[in-house]
């Protein structure tokens, strides 16, 4: 699995197309948080509904992967599938319990934020280990410069600069990333 986790999205899709079961597991693992985040944060689906969406999305991915034209565009394709399944689920719930709340721009904003968050996460994974550690400690764990300095045995006066340099690398990675333009033939 370690080898599969280092594959690009396109490489993983190719292995799935070749019928590699482990690659399928890796693909589900890679995108499960993404699908779950879209359904729970973007569409505010509760646990059982989010589980149903999860199952349905990955069933569709499995059965329709051959329709994906650009292997590198697997993420936006999965996002599109997830949105459709979520919209169907919300519509079904409304028929059962009409609430009058439309699926509006708010959802799109949340989905855009999620896309950005996952893009940052991917870019972060491509940075050197020391940068990943620095940024994680400061931005995720809210550690102070003193704590980071002490834990990593680095001079305290250099921590802010080191974090700034790692952020520059992260920005360069994000700006340099190619955005897959082709989705599926659906």
């Amino acid at each position, binding site marked *: 699995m370690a080898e599969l986790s280092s594959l690009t999205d396109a490489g993983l899709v190719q292995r799935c197309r070749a019928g590699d079961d482990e690659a399928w597991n890796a693909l589900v693992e890679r995108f499960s948080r993404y699908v779950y985040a879209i359904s729970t944060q973007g569409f505010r689906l509760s646990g059982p509904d989010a589980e149903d969406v999860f199952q349905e999305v990955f069933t569709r991915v499995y059965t329709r992967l051959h329709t994906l034209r650009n292997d590198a565009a697997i993420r936006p394709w999965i996002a599109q599938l997830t949105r459709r399944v979520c919209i169907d689920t919300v519509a079904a719930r409304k028929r059962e319990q009409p609430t009058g709340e439309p699926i509006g721009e708010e959802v799109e904003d949340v989905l855009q934020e999620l896309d950005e968050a996952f893009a940052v996460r991917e870019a972060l994974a491509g940075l050197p280990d020391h940068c990943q550690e620095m940024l994680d400690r*400061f*931005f995720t764990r*809210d550690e*102070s*410069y*003193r704590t980071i300095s002490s834990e990593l045995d680095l001079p*305290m*006066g250099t921590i*802010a*600069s080191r*974090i*700034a*340099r*790692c*952020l*520059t690398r992260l*920005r360069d990675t994000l700006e340099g990333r190619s955005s897959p333009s082709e989705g599926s033939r659906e």
Partner: protein
Amino acid sequence: MGETNYLELRLGDVLARIAASDQSPGGGSAAALTVAVAAGLVAMVARCSHGSWSEGPGVAAQALAIQERVVPLADTDARAWDEALTALRNAGDTDSGGDFELERKLELAAAVPLEIAQLGADVAALAALAGERCEGAYHADAAAAAALAAGGARAAAHLVRANLAVRDGDERLRRAHVSEQAALDAAERALRLIR
């Protein structure tokens, strides 16, 4: 006492709340907001120096991250202090949990300013860095940010020392002192650049 999001209040309302006769929000909240203002100044200096300082955007991002952390502490401190005051008034009343409850409330009332002092030290460090690297026109703002952050850290450290639950030899005293001193040293460095 309900939660207050200080970002949603008008500045006049914030100042009026601080000036009101209630004991909270008090010094801890004011210290948190001062550190937040200082962080905003650092972000401005770093952003304005982008053309000549490649690390500027990264420093601005750090300043804004700290600002996001410190603003809610203005409310957390006010609430913790409020609860500690209530517990102090009820001290000796066995129905209210007695000394144990009072001690617990005072512990929390000390933890918040300790965090504010630490964040103030970090903002002062960022301000000093910005002062050294930013474009000349912004040196004075960087120094002002460092002085404000150090003021906030010092005020917060003072509140840790004044807390009844904090006794001689307490680790929190040492940490508050370290943060305060680090902030003052950073401010001194930043101010020296404009003298």
